């Protein structure tokens, strides 16, 4: 540790950023889709879908991680099939991203759903009368009008992904460079005498990163709101 942070720690920071970024990005389309479905459609099993989405919030993260391990592990029912196609999550950074995405998903969906619900259906109707098919109505009216919530949901998910620990370490362990994210590294430091100092440094790094993201989202949100401001 010649530097303020050692190379091990920098690796954890870089990994956390990568994991959170991809977790957020990859789950965004699903998040928007499910939020829209929950906000605007009614279909059988809607309550079950809603419950499933919220499950990671309700369960202790260890349980979520354990379930992920059982399902997506190389010997799991889904993980096994995926493994045949060459997609492996277990003990890879991609698995960490999956864990983070699953844990952050309820937050993302809620925020987006609230924003979609706030879009006046009368504007969507107006769009339809002008010839926009449901898909275009969504793309040109619903989506841009719900943008503040989408930004909020994305940043919330990113922050949650940055802080995710329990499910990640249970699902993909704590392997440096692969699955040792900032929270896992902090955990390791806190498990031994004298590790608090190093842990604190990582805490500060994650605060800085997350605050940056948060600040960015506020700026974007304000700009979006100013554009939409007042009908």
């Amino acid at each position, binding site marked *: 540790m010649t530097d303020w942070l050692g190379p091990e720690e920098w690796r954890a920071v870089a990994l956390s950023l990568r994991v959170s970024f991809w977790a957020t990005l990859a789950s965004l389309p699903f998040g928007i889709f499910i939020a829209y479905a929950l906000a605007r459609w009614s279909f059988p099993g809607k309550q079950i879908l809603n419950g499933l989405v919220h499950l990671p919030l309700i369960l202790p993260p260890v349980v979520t*991680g*354990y379930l992920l391990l059982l399902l997506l592990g190389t010997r799991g029912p889904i993980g096994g099939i995926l493994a045949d196609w060459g997609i492996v999550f277990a003990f890879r950074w991609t698995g960490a991203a999956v864990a983070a995405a699953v844990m952050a998903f309820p937050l993302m969906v809620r925020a987006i759903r609230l924003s979609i619900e706030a879009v006046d259906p009368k504007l969507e109707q107006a769009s339809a009368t002008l010839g926009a098919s449901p898909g275009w109505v969504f793309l040109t009216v619903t989506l841009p009008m719900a943008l503040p919530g989408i930004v909020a949901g994305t940043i919330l998910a990113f922050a949650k992904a940055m802080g995710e620990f329990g499910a990640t370490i249970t699902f993909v*362990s704590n392997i440096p460079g692969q699955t040792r994210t900032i929270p896992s590294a902090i*955990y390791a430091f806190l498990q*031994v005498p004298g590790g608090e100092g190093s842990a604190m440094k990582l805490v500060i790094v994650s605060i800085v990163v997350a605050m940056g993201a948060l600040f960015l989202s506020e700026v974007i949100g304000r700009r979006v709101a100013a554009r939409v401001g007042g009908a």
Partner: protein
Amino acid sequence: EEVVVFAAASMANALAEIEGSFEAATGHDLVVSLAGSSALARQIQQGAPADIFISASTDWTDRIEGDGLIEDGSRFDLLGNSIVLIAFGDADPTEIGPGFDLARLLGDGRLAMAMVDSVPAGVYGKAALESLGIWDAVEPQVAQADNVRAALAFVATGEAPYGIVYATDAAAEDSVSIVGTFPADTHPVVVYPVVDLANRDTPAEAEFLDYLRGPEARAAFERQGFTVLVD
């Protein structure tokens, strides 16, 4: 070549030292994943790509062994530890033996321990108190943490006046003092078993297992307060 070690989180410091010297000495790449023994064991059950497993308790190793996941005959007990009663601030060292009136000492304060039915340090502590015949008296006042370090933190912040932790943890914390060590015969021996997992076999694994028994490793472990059980 790469050697993947799944190790109980309490070994972080020692393994960090060993990692450096081992890699320098052999040119192999040591990858250490630190987490709770239970999480690691479950991951191994689900096919984690680990070569070596160092658990903080025997029961998870037993379970892995029962599942046939270890190299026959590779298991050995590497480290030992002792458990101690600590107090917030300065305290008079006391001999802990039959008739030790811990309840009076506690008053209406709390006794911080790791989870007494599940986390090894807690299990050992509970066994010791039981064999001393004082468990029933103090049980209502036990505050269980999810790991030893968290138990230590309760005492270190003065939240709980007393706690039971490993000697290794107690030594490194300035704001607590050791009241006494529980006699070794009051609880099962505290051991850290090492096993070679039966997924793949490389020369590097053997080299590492040898290294763990070697003098450099011994020195590192002892610096952290462990008793090294191999010779």
